[in-house]
């Protein structure tokens, strides 16, 4: 339906405005990450673009250089602190391991469960779906204290066993993300007409072959989109990681340590924050098409 011209213009303005509101903090953050300290802490004015950009914050957080070391090398007197405590390479590795592990576990379960929910009739299917959705309503903080105790007893705390710690974090992330991944995957499976399964069956495929050779490859875009979403949720999770681990520090927890008793390292916080956002951006761009379709949960039929 063609909208009147003034409505269209209004709509475009609104869209740009909303996008700007949402993008501004991220842009400001990215900008802060390349500012020298003098531009971050200018008490007379807000510095937008008139500063000399620096990569020192990235050098310290991502490459483990020391700020004072760089300052001495370059003969400028600015650098104090910024030593190993700000080296975030280990945190990034921890985040990668935990997020990829959690995504793999989640998707391995969700794909099969969603196929069954989409294709097979069994008693209590609708109730089960509602129950799964209900899991999403529960705030993680509600189960935090019992969870810490359980994890301690189960040996899934990292100060007892490092591998247990990784495993524990992956498991809880997988549990948190299973409902959304399951519902998303079900909507993707639902989009594949049942005729396709039947055609495969007539072509001589077993149930497993029709799943693995026909239906699953047809929803691979959906698998990618769901996996990205699960990855991002795991990548950005803070609360559970903070409480359940000590020596394992995922990126969000690591960033929080840059807020110290002697002052906040805004430059480092911004640099690590910006760097951490980049993979999410790239993944989202790659699967955007599938994600929008999937998030409407099957309401769009081709």
């Amino acid at each position, binding site marked *: 339906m063609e909208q009147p011209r003034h409505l269209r213009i209004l709509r475009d303005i609104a869209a740009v405005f909303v996008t700007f509101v949402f993008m501004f903090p991220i842009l400001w953050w990215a900008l802060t990450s390349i500012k020298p300290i003098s531009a971050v802490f200018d008490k007379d004015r807000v510095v937008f673009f008139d500063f000399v950009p620096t990569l020192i914050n990235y050098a310290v957080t991502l490459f483990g250089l020391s700020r004072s070391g760089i300052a001495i090398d370059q003969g400028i007197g600015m650098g104090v602190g910024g030593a190993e405590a700000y080296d975030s390479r280990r945190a990034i590795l921890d985040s990668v391991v935990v997020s990829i592990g959690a995504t793999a576990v989640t998707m391995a379960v969700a794909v099969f469960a969603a196929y069954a929910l989409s294709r097979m009739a069994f008693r209590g299917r609708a109730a089960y779906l509602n129950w799964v959705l209900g899991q999403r309503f529960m705030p993680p903080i509600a189960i935090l204290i019992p969870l810490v105790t359980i994890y301690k007893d189960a040996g899934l705390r990292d100060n007892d066993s490092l591998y247990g710690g990784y495993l524990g974090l992956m498991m809880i992330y997988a549990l948190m993300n299973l409902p959304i991944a399951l519902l998303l995957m079900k909507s993707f499976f639902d989009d594949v*007409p049942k*005729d*396709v399964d*039947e*055609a*495969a*069956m*007539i*072509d*001589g*495929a077993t149930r497993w*072959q029709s799943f693995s*050779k*026909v239906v699953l*490859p*047809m929803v*691979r875009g959906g698998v990618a989109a769901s996996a990205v979403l699960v990855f991002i949720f795991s990548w950005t999770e803070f609360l559970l990681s903070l409480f359940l681990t000590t020596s394992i520090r995922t990126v969000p927890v690591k960033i929080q340590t840059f807020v110290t008793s002697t002052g906040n390292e805004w430059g480092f916080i911004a640099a690590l924050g910006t760097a951490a956002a980049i993979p999410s951006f790239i993944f989202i761009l790659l699967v955007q098409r599938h994600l929008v379709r999937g998030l409407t949960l099957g309401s769009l039929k081709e």
Partner: protein
Amino acid sequence: MASVTLKNIFKKYGDIEVVHGVDLTIEDGSFVVLLGPSGCGKSTLLRMIAGLESVTSGDVEIAGKRVNDKHPKDRDIAMVFQNYALYAHMTVKDNMSFSLVLAKRPQLEIDEKTQWAAKILNLEPYLKRYPRELSGGQRQRVAMGRAIVRDPAVFLFDEPLSNLDAKLRVQMRTEIKDLHERLKTTTVYVTHDQIEAMTMADKIVILRDGIIEQMGTPLEVYDHPVNLFVAQFIGSPTMNMIKGIAEKTHVITADGVKLPLPKSHKAKAGQEVIYGIRPEDLDVGTGFPAKISVTEPTGPEIHIYADLGDDEICAIVRERQEFKRDSIVEFAPRLDKVHLFDAKTTMAIR
């Protein structure tokens, strides 16, 4: 190559019975069309032959063997679906060869058969393409190719042309018919389109509400419908149906109009009947009067719509003539083409 026999087939979904005892024999090599309005059970019947639906009671036999409990892949059938059901992630070649690959046939045979099918269906230039890169008609042909590479005993078609535009539908109709002439494989074809049924079938089976109303060659069911439903379902524009009381030489309508009857008619005097005459068997001439309402020139012929009491009748004439709206014109039915139906039982009186 095989015949298909349905013996006293019933189908229930829960408490709802949708097929009420169907007996049907489909001879080896014939092209049988299951025709009926939506919800008549034609697709359910086809899916029961395919093994995609279980049979509540009765027997499905293919090539003389009971297949009720056999898996679809063990029935030696191939099916073409309404929405093609192509494997979107596979090329045309892979789509067509999928069944042979699953059957672990030698690569040489797979290539040969795929090539052969592609040649028959003019798909050779498209073998490396994906379904999304094809037009509707080409996709339809891939779906058919997938069926023919297997050289099955029976082809099943479930409304295969209903997603195509009108022009392509006519073309594909001819292609499917031609394919059947060449391969002579037993074919069961489901459609709600009576033109498809008429043009393609060796035998038409007309279904309504889960029972067979009539079966016969296209011209048999067209010329000798056994009841009102069949008479109205087949033919376009539909047969004129006028209520009246039978007399010796005519039927009198409620308004006193006399509709002439052939001498040999079988209706009893005073019987309530429905007088049926197809539009092309109604000509302008001496017969009974009706008031012109609309004329529609289609090119080769003119469709004349006229009011006869409360009924609207249609006549098709081939001569170029002009008719004024509201003018009274006399229509002459071809007496040997008059159909009489009992108004109560709706069965043909013959």
